[in-house]
């Protein structure tokens, strides 16, 4: 297990380096940053001065290593808009986004796994179809629409929940419902198909032949085998929730990482955009690493390969 973990960690390191180079290059290739920063109607001289001020006139490799060394020292640059350290702005935005992301994933899994198991236990019956209908509905509803409907219904009409901000736990309920609903269907379908495959295997027939009760056969024998792709998918979903919840954060006025990214793009605040880009890439890499390790713990055969 230790060897496998070290192996995965080394791989993750190289992926992180590769991602940082690609992302750095993409931002530079998206246009002449100095020209954009100088604004419309700026003279060549003004653009040149802008490039000089932000070090954009230096060769790409020099810019990259300069940025890399400063990042390793904990310096992600300063926002062009607020003139505050980028690191500080990100660290302020992360907790609320992380809280919502973990709660949403937790809620999604809490529904997805039992529903997937039940659907697989009664395939092609009305139970299975009802669960499928739920999944389709959850996937088909756009998040912004669902957010607005909930806001109007639970917030404006019934006045049960606050509709904007993130001060108390009540503020998080609606965002969690919306985001949880958006990632639940794929996790449920994956649980169902994994369970259906596993329930066909010989060792499940053997488990029945041993006279084990149904809950032991389903949850101990089948689910542990069926859950492996669900774990991998959860890591991806969590990455999506940490970075992609822009619309939901905007609607509920939550000052999370998604909203910060969105605003920074509009303000052409490229040090912040760059920092968020790297932050989210590393989050993805880290989550994938964790998912690999959980799977290795669940399935002893993975460690051997």
């Amino acid at each position, binding site marked *: 297990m230790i060897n496998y973990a070290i192996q995965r960690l080394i791989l993750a390191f190289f992926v992180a380096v590769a991602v940082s180079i690609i992302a750095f290059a993409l931002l530079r290739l998206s246009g002449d940053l100095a020209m954009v920063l100088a604004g419309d109607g700026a003279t060549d001289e003004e653009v040149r001065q802008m490039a000089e001020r932000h070090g954009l006139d230096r060769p790409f490799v020099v810019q990259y290593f300069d940025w890399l060394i400063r990042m390793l020292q904990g310096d992600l640059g300063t926002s062009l808009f607020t003139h505050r350290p980028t690191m500080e702005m990100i660290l302020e935005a992360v907790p609320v986004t992380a809280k919502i992301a973990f709660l949403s994933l937790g809620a999604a899994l809490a529904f997805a796994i039992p529903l997937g198991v039940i659907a697989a236990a009664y395939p092609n019956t009305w139970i299975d179809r009802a669960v499928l209908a739920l999944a389709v509905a959850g996937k088909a509803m756009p998040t912004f629409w669902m957010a607005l409907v909930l806001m109007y219904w639970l917030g404006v009409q019934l006045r049960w929940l606050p509709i904007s901000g993130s001060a108390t736990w009540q503020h998080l309920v609606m965002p969690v419902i919306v985001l949880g609903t958006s990632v639940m269907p794929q996790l449920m379908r994956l649980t169902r198909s994994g369970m259906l495959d596993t329930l066909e295997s010989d*060792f499940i*027939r*053997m488990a029945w*032949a*041993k*006279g084990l009760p149904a809950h*032991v056969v389903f949850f*101990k024998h089948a689910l542990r085998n069926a859950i492996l792709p669900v774990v991998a998918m959860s890591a991806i979903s969590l990455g999506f929730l940490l970075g992609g919840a822009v619309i939901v954060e905007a609607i509920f006025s939550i000052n999370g990482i998604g909203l910060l990214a969105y605003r920074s793009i509009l303000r052409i605040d490229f040090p912040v955009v760059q920092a968020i880009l790297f932050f989210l890439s590393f989050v993805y890499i880290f989550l994938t690493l964790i998912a690999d390790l959980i799977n290795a713990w669940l399935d002893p055969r993975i460690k051997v390969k």
Partner: protein
Amino acid sequence: MAIDYGAPPLLDIAGLHLSIPTSGGDLRVLRGVDYQLWQGETLAVVGESGSGKSVSSLALMGLHPRRASVSAERMTFDGQNILGLSRPALRKLRGNQMAMIFQDPMTSLNPVLTIGEQLVETYSAHGKGSRAQATERAIYLLERVGIRNARERLGQYPHQLSGGLRQRVVIAIALMCNPKLIIADEPTTALDVTVQALILSLLKELQEEFGMALILISHDIGVVSSIADRVAIMYAGTIVESGGADEVIHEPLHPYTRGLVDCVPRLRPGRERKPLVTIPGIVPSLLGPSRGCLFRNRCPKALDTCAMTDPAVQRTASGRVFRCIHSEAVLHAAHTRPADPAPVAAGGRA
């Protein structure tokens, strides 16, 4: 261990039918299966793929496909009617009173659970005792089936064991609750030839030691001839012939049994090579009802009347049972050909 044939049978099945509804009509997999099994006895059920030999034992344990419908005139185990038994009641019997050994040890153990867990859980599920007791019994049985370092093996996973060792583990799991009946469904088919004989003799040895009844399902009449007391030959969902293993194999009555026996290739170094024998034709479709003998299209002794009526069940003086339109004497005379040595004589019953 002597078998007391005077006692009531442990397992008594009569007229077992099983059909599976499909889009093309009912697939009638079992068309009246009858057999009895006594405590301590070994019955070999032999037949081709699709003859219903595995399904009949799955039906016995209530493990047949859920959409299949099962009916029988009689189906009792240890004096208890098991046909109408509720799911929980059947579950209490499974793994406890009757255990099953499946064909492929590479896939019948759960890859993500340790060997120890898979042994212990059967014992615990039937409330046989504490975890410590279960672990002790697991170690004892692993050693008994010929696995060394049993205590260390408990913490290992199936992929760390060879096929032969895994089948020994599967056998140990079957023995955990000291069942009265073990059904072994092609227990050696997936194993190397060198390991097959070891596993079969181990099964026989354990059966005598623990006094269990054993149903050995196989497609290979040669394999079972050495350890079975009685043999039942299945064809297209019915038992076409049954009786003492020696008699059935050495003097087969039913033309199908005769064909099966002739199909066993014999290894005799130095002798001229004979072409491999086959039974011409294929197993008939099991869709829908049928009239007449289902073997008639492949039978060398078939008459026109075979298509008209179902063959009667006949019983010989020595207690053998067969389903054929011909009488015992006719079949006997037809099969006795000069200069044809008794098949599978070599290495037969010890």
